């Protein structure tokens, strides 16, 4: 009989290796697919440079422009909150920092558990609000595909199972932890093949955007 501990060990062991491998190879393929296409030489005399404006756009797009903040405050506020919450829970929760340290050999200070707990709860609420918005807002509803809802589910489950495991709401604990690790692995495996790639490619897209405009003397 498979015990919850067996399940946890499988999730932490072979399954983790598979997930990391699919994620790493997948994202590498995606980036190669993008960069291999290249860009045509631009013969028009540039007004500004590409490099720095491109890098500035990478940073600037973390903050909404005044118009977007005014026209879509819900998107900006809720989107910002749950993205930050997700990243904080991922990178600043003590067990996650430990895992990163043991896997990659680099570590950093973590936040106290109650703080991460609160932020996780807010993130879950933010994600729920984002889903309701997607289901009701005319443009979002119109644009949304099955993939958009699936990816919402994959993202929500990672955070939810983490929250449930921390609060010991699933028993026994090895099962709770195993489920959380498995959802994280699903997240990693689907990442390179879905819109989750934006986690990496948005930096590339922003740079090209900033470079296109920067060349013409506009900071985008």
């Amino acid at each position, binding site marked *: 009989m498979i015990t919850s501990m067996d399940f946890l060990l499988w999730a932490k062991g072979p399954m983790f290796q598979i997930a990391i491998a699919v994620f790493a190879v997948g994202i590498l*393929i*995606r980036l190669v*697919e*993008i*960069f*291999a*296409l*290249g*860009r*045509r030489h*631009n*013969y*028009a*005399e540039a*007004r*500004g440079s590409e490099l720095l404006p491109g890098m500035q*756009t*990478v940073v600037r*797009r973390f903050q*909404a*422009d*005044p*118009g*977007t903040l005014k*026209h*879509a405050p819900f*998107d900006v506020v809720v*989107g910002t909150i749950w993205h930050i919450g997700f990243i904080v829970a991922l990178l600043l929760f003590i067990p996650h920092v430990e895992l990163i340290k043991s896997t990659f050999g680099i570590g950093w200070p973590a936040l106290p558990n109650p703080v991460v707990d609160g932020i996780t709860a807010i993130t879950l609420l933010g994600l729920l609000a984002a889903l309701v918005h997607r289901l009701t*807002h*005319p*443009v*979002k*509803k*119109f*644009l*949304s*595909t099955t993939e*958009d809802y699936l990816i919402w589910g994959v993202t929500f489950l990672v955070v939810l199972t983490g929250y449930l495991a921390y609060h010991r709401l699933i028993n026994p604990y090895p099962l709770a932890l195993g489920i959380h690790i498995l959802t994280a692995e699903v997240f990693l495996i689907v990442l390179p*093949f879905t*819109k989750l*790639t*934006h986690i990496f*490619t*948005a930096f*590339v*897209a*922003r*740079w*090209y*955007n*900033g470079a*296109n*405009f920067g060349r*013409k*003397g*506009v*900071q*985008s």
Partner: protein
Amino acid sequence: MSTTTSTNATPAAGPFSLQRGLQALREEMDAPVASFFSSCVHCGLCATACPFHVETGDPKYTPIYKLEPMRLLWEQEYTLWGKLKGKIGLGKQVTDEMLEEWEPLLYDSCSMCGRCSMVCPVGNDIAYMIRKAREGMVASGHAPEGLIAASVRAVNTGSPMGLQWKTLEVQIKHAETASGLTVPLDQQGADYLVLLSSMEIINFPEYLEAITKIFDHAGVSWTLSKDCFEATNAGIQIGNKDIAAKLTQRVVDAAVKLGVKNVISPECGHAYTAIRWEGPNNIGRAYPFKVFHIIEVLDQLRADGRIKTEGKEMERLSMHDPCNLARKSGVIQQQRNLMDLVADNFVELKEHGKYQWCCGAGGGVSSNERAEPLKMAAFKRKKAQIEEVEPERMVTMCATCRTQLEEGLEEFNMDIPVIGLTEMIAEHLKESD
């Protein structure tokens, strides 16, 4: 489905086909496009930046949605996942019907103003991709009648409106009589070759008179070319590289023949982006001359102290930045410097410069009769902006924007005249002793 099959079976049946359209789209795929499509999360924020969506409320006018056929082709042929899906028969095909359905989205409801490119959180330059997607539309035979007619006229007569040199000659005579000066024609070795737009020649001939006066006042050596007076490029608006290259080459030939050092784009935003940014890429080499918008030239003359003005406009004036000039070309401060010279009571529209809103007529929308209702709908955003600051007159520096502002303001019974900035400068030139 049957149509797709038959089109597939006869790829060489005519100059336009689905196969040619898809091939044209493939040629437009590059690293930026792939990074943009990879990054879209369907947040829909680009819709809030688009006057066509904002004023109609129709979700199908969401900018990124206008690129769905191109995105689909990219996914199928340029991603491993898409190729796998295609192999097991899961991939949706781009069909001729799909392209037909997208024609009004890519032409009637987009002026390529680029405002969506400024707000996308993941950084997608959507306008950059719309320009590319249009190449596929032309090659597949799905471009609007109005733009096809304009392109044919541009190739055959040199003007998208079919304007002949003799029409311009009448306007030249008129400018000479009104100014008491001579308009230089085919002056070998002049510093500046001045180009015009047909719309300007027909609707705003006062522009030619204005530059004749200003250049005389500032002692600028300039000329018109009888070989080529048209600055606009219908090939770029419709999305056809071959036509675009042909029209660009005419300007280059005229400039080289006269041995000019600089070419001046008229008060036309499109013409400026066409000749300044796209032209060299159309012909595949750098120009042996520099290109300026007339506003850049005037501001340089101002900075050099070569324009002396007297008197100021006392009316409350506001200004419309043409998208092509400001957001898409970085000419933003120059028009403000010139306004300071002649306007005493200038008030900015709230969102201006790189964040300005399009008038609704650019990117070929105004040459596409079918788009007329959408063009007027999109104008309502500009109208709302103008109402916020209640100017007595509007100033702009693009003949298409100006025509749209005049028509739109009249449509909504707003008594606000529109004037070109170059003209306004000419009205304030200090009389020489």
